[in-house]
C-alpha cells in the first residue's frame, strides 16, 4: 500500500500546462527523487501535494485517504511535512523557537492551562524541549540554538529548515531543493543525513534536487517531469538512461555546464 499517492493531477495557469495527468506513488520509508528542468512543474506538484494550490482535477491520497480538499495545516497535521525552495523560517525567532513552533502538532495544552501554568502545560513544554534537543542533535545544530535566522549563513539555514520540518515528525517529507545554495562539502553530507533521517524517523522522503549526484545516489526511485508530465520513472539507472530524460534534462544540464565552464 502506498503512503502518498496522486491520481491524474491536472493544473493549468492560463494557457500554460503546469501539471498534466500526474500520477505518482510513494511507499512507506522510501526515498524518491523528482527531477526535471526548470519550469517542469516540480514545485507546483509540491504545492498541490501540500495544499497550497488546488488542482483542476485529480486527487491526492495519504494512506489511501483522500486529502484533496484538506487545507495545508490539516495535511501537516496528517503527517505531511515540506520545505520550500526559498527558505521560509520565522525571522524574529531563534533556531530553538523555530523548532518549538514546529512542535504544534504534538502539543495539546489549552490557553487557560498555559496562562495558569497548569501541569498539562508543564508536561507539554518539557516534552517539546526534549524533542527540540533530539532534533538539534540529529542535525548537529546545537551551537546555533540561540541564533536568529538573520545571523546564519544560507547553507546553515537549509539545515535549520530541515530541522524545523523534522520537528513536525512527518510521515512524508517533501524536500524542495535542500542542497541549493549550500557548500559542496555540506551537499555531500546531505545524502547520508537524509538516509539517517529516514531510518530514525521512519518517514518517506520525496525530493526535488538539481544536484544530480546527490539525487541519484540517495533516491531509490526517481520520477522525471517535463512540461508537467511524468516522462519517466524507475530506478535512478533506468531514468538516467531514458531517452526522453536525456534530451529534456540531462542534455540541457550538460550544455549549461559547458557554458558555465
Amino acid at each position: 500500500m502506498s503512503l502518498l499517492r496522486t491520481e491524474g493531477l491536472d493544473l493549468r495557469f492560463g494557457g500554460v500546462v503546469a501539471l498534466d495527468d500526474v500520477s505518482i506513488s510513494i511507499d512507506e520509508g522510501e526515498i524518491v527523487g523528482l527531477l526535471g528542468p526548470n519550469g517542469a512543474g516540480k514545485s507546483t506538484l509540491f504545492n498541490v501535494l501540500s495544499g497550497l494550490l488546488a488542482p483542476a482535477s485529480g486527487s491526492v491520497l495519504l494512506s489511501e485517504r483522500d486529502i484533496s480538499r484538506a487545507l495545508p495545516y490539516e495535511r501537516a497535521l496528517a503527517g505531511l511535512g515540506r520545505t520550500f525552495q526559498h527558505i521560509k523560517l520565522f525571522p524574529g525567532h531563534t533556531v530553538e523557537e523555530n523548532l518549538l513552533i514546529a512542535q504544534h502538532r504534538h502539543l495539546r495544552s489549552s490557553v487557560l492551562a498555559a496562562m495558569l501554568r497548569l501541569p498539562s502545560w508543564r508536561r507539554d513544554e518539557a516534552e517539546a524541549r526534549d524533542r527540540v534537543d533530539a532534533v538539534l542533535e540529529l542535525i548537529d545544530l546545537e551551537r546555533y540554538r540561540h541564533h536568529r535566522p538573520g545571523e546564519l549563513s544560507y547553507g546553515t539555514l537549509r539545515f535549520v529548515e530541515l530541522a524545523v520540518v523534522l520537528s513536525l515528525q512527518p510521515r512524508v517529507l517533501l524536500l524542495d531543493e535542500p542542497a541549493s545554495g549550500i557548500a559542496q562539502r555540506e551537499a555531500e553530507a546531505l545524502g547520508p543525513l537524509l538516509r539517517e533521517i529516514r531510518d530514525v524517523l521512519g518517514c518517506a522522503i520525496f525530493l526535488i534536487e538539481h544536484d544530480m549526484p546527490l539525487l541519484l545516489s540517495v533516491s531509490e526511485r526517481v520520477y522525471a517531469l517535463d512540461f508537467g508530465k511524468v516522462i519517466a520513472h524507475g530506478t535512478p539507472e533506468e531514468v538516467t538512461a531514458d531517452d526522453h530524460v536525456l534530451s529534456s534534462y540531462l542534455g540541457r544540464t550538460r550544455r549549461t555546464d559547458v557554458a558555465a565552464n
Partner: protein
Amino acid sequence: MSTKVITLTPTTQHARRGTALAVALAAAAVGPLLLSDFASFIGARIAVTAIIGLSVIVVTGYTGQLSLMPYTFAGIGVFVAAHTITGWGWPFWFAAAFAAALSVPLSLLVGLVAVRLRGFYFAIATLTFASAVGATLFEWDAFTGGQKGLPVSRPVIGPIDFAGDRAYYLLCLVTVLLLVWMVMGLQDSRIGRAMTAVRENETAAATLGINVMKTKLVAFMVSGMIAAIGGVFHGMLLQHVTRTPYQTPFVEAVGVTLVILVVVGGMRSPWGPFIGAAIIYVQLEVFRTALFLQYFIAAVTAVAFVVVLLRLPDGLVGLIKHEAAAVRRAPLRGGVRVALIIAVNVVVLYGIWRLSR
C-alpha cells in the same frame, strides 16, 4: 562587539534579572503610596490602562492583527461592573470573570468575519464594529444608564476597603501583575508560539500544522476577554461611567491612542503596556499645569514617537533590555550611563513641574 564578554551563566542572569524586577516593582508599589492619594489615582490609571493594553499585546503584538476595538470590549466590562458590582452586589472578581465571558459572543461574531481579512482590512473591520457596537449596545439606556451614566463602587474584601485611591491602586497593581504573568505563560505555549508564527509567516505556519484562522480567532477572543476585565477595573477607577467614551468618535480615538502607547512601551512584551502607560501618564500629569509649554511638548512628543518607531522597534522594553545588557557587559560604565539617563529625565520633569506651579 564580541558576545564572549557576557560571562554570566543563564541562571545567575535570571537571578539578577529577577532581583532588578523585584526592586522596580517594589518601587512601583510603594512610590505612589508615599506621594499622595492623587499619585495613587494616577498609578491606578496606569495599571488599568496596562490591563487594557495587554489585550493589544495578544492580538496585535503577538498575532500581528491591528484591532481598534479594545475600548469596545473595555466598555462591556465598564457597564458590567456598574450593574453587577453596584447594582447586584457581586464581588469584583466575579464581575471580572462575568465581563470576560460576556465579551466572548461579541469577539466570536466580529472575529469570525475579521480573521478572514488581513492588514488594513482587519483594522477597518474592527473599527467599523467598534462604531456599530457604540451605536447599538451602548445606546441601550438600560445597559449604560443613558446620558446620566451609572455609578460604580469600589470593592470591599473582608476587612479591607478599596474605596480609597491608595488601596485601589494596590489592587490594580496586583491585578495587572497577575495578568502580565498569565500572558507570559501564554507566550511560552503552543498557542502563543502559533500566534507569533502567524504574525511572521502565515504560509510557513500553515505548513507546520498551525490553523491560521483559528489562531487569529483565539487571539482576538483572549484579547477581548482581557480588555473586558480591564474595563471592570476602569469602571471601579472612575466610580461613575457614561457611554460617550465607548461611542464614535471617541472609541476610535482612544483605541488608536492605546495602540500608540503600547508601541512606545513595547509591543512584543507583556511589560510594554505597563511601561508605555507609566511614561505617558506621568508625563501628562507633569505637563498638565505647564500650559506655557504645551505646543513645545506636543512637538517633542511627536518627535519622540518617531524616534521610537525608527530606532526602537521593541519600544522602551527594548531600550531597557539593551541598557541592561550594557550594564552586564560593563557594570561601571553601563551603570553610570543608565544613572545619567534616569537623572536627566527626572531633573527635566521635576524642573518643568516646579516651574509650572
